[in-house]
């Protein structure tokens, strides 16, 4: 991976709140155009990490680089290249969705030209004149995401972007994230939703008690924790779990020969099981 393609990196970053250490030697990097998922249970330090990366908090030690330079030297112009949707992002309730987007377009120095296209993409065109106070949570969340995207940021921080959304709205967000990724936007995503992380992210880091306990591509992580077994459902002998070795292969061949096999599949863990394995905790 070329050093110039790294948009964001942390190296040995530590942060404490009083006596409690919330981030302990955090090290990772995110490349241009990559969707990097940051997973972890509540209180693991996900939002704190985003706050460090977006100037809301200051680290105690370690190095953070943003667009190739130390975060301490990052300029306002660098932050104009960033879009942020936090778990507490909110729009003005007495204004319509469209007026809110126009406000943010003006703040970001962009024309209102892209608003129609964005509203269309998020399926909000019909509701553009609806006051935010009359919108459902899903509509608010999608509108807030559009506000974060209004200036076509190069780097997008998304903190639980689909939290509280119905499956259809979640699918809209996932489709949009896929489009953004295809267009070269770098995405830093925190989520509780393992299926979302699996389908959207190119790479993942699993955070537990302020430390990264694993980091890799979703498939590699799952394979790393593969159980090396095959499940065979038979006609008369019930469900059999056999290991992936030569002896089991012979056993399975015999089952096929005697027409006993109803179904057969490997038993790979999903991300949630990988997470539980690594942290010993539930979300």
């Amino acid at each position: 991976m070329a050093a110039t393609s790294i948009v964001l990196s942390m190296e040995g970053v530590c942060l404490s709140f009083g006596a409690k250490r919330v981030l302990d030697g955090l090290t990772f990097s995110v490349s241009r155009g990559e969707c990097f998922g940051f997973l972890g249970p509540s209180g693991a330090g996900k939002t704190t990490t985003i706050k460090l990366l977006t100037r809301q908090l200051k680290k105690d030690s370690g190095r953070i680089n943003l667009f190739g330079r130390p975060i301490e030297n990052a300029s306002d112009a660098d932050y104009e290249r960033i879009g942020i949707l936090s778990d507490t992002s909110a729009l003005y309730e007495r204004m319509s969705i469209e007026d809110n987007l126009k406000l943010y377009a003006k703040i970001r120095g962009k024309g209102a030209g892209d608003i129609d296209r964005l509203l269309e993409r998020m399926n909000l065109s019909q509701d553009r004149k609806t006051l935010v106070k009359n919108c459902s949570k899903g509509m608010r969340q999608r509108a807030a995401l559009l506000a974060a995207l209004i200036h076509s940021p190069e780097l997008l921080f998304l903190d639980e972007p689909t939290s509280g959304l119905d499956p259809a709205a979640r699918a809209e967000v996932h489709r949009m994230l896929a489009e953004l990724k295809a267009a070269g936007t770098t995405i830093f995503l925190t989520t509780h939703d393992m299926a979302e992380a699996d389908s959207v992210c190119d790479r993942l880091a699993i955070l537990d008690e302020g430390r990264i306990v694993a980091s890799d591509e979703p498939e590699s992580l799952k394979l790393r924790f593969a159980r090396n077994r095959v499940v065979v459902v038979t006609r008369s002998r019930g469900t059999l779990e056999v290991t992936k070795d030569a002896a089991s292969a012979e056993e399975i061949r015999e089952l096929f020969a005697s027409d006993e096999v109803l179904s057969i599949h490997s038993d790979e863990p999903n991300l949630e099981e990988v997470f539980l394995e690594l942290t010993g905790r539930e979300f």
Partner: protein
Amino acid sequence: MNAAMRKTGALLAKDIVDLFKNPTMLVVCLMPVAFMALYTFMIGDATSDAGITAEQQAAANPIIDQFMLGSSLCMTIGMVCTMTVLYGIAEEKEKRTLRTLMLANVGASQIVVAKSVVALIASTAVNAICFFVAGGEPPMLGTYLALGVLGSLPIILFSLVLGLACRDQMTAGVYSVPVLLLTLVPMFGMSNESIEKVGHYLPTGGIYDLMGMAIEGNMNLQDALIPLAVTAVWIVAGAVVFSLLFKRLARDN
């Protein structure tokens, strides 16, 4: 600089439009006008029932005018400036729109400037309406509005500090009471000598006295020096408190 001005301008436009959409702000802006209408009615009724002579009436007029226009200034500054700034910031904090703005790379200073300018515009507009409701003489309007702007400055500065310190609108309600009381004290000076003495030195005391001098037509530098100094001291005090606490409050909250 251009980006800062663009952002401040966008926030200013948003805050001005919101002033007309926000029921709380509308009521706050209408209150001084309603009070002045009530006072005009009450004082007009009282003087006509008192059976005083035309000479006595002529002698009383400047005192009544000072009370009416001075009270109008105190009420407008106290209610409009305090509430638009304090409640404005508190609502943004409570509804988390302030945080969203700051995550969109908007500086706290840009938000503060927009809120302050809106408070000045609103108080000047309300002051102008109150002036005519209170029966002010049109030639006096310029002086009256200038004193309104001058008196608004310290109150806006203190309200900004309190706005940044408060958590939500309920806290804003509590914090606004002492500011409101301090700004209203000078208008009760006529009813009590001790209040009058204290009133001269409060944030709106200086402009209340200057208004009286303007009405009597004897605003010379020597007499105006103390009320001007009182106002200047409050503006400087507000600016010092604001500059000391702004960074910390903006960061912590």
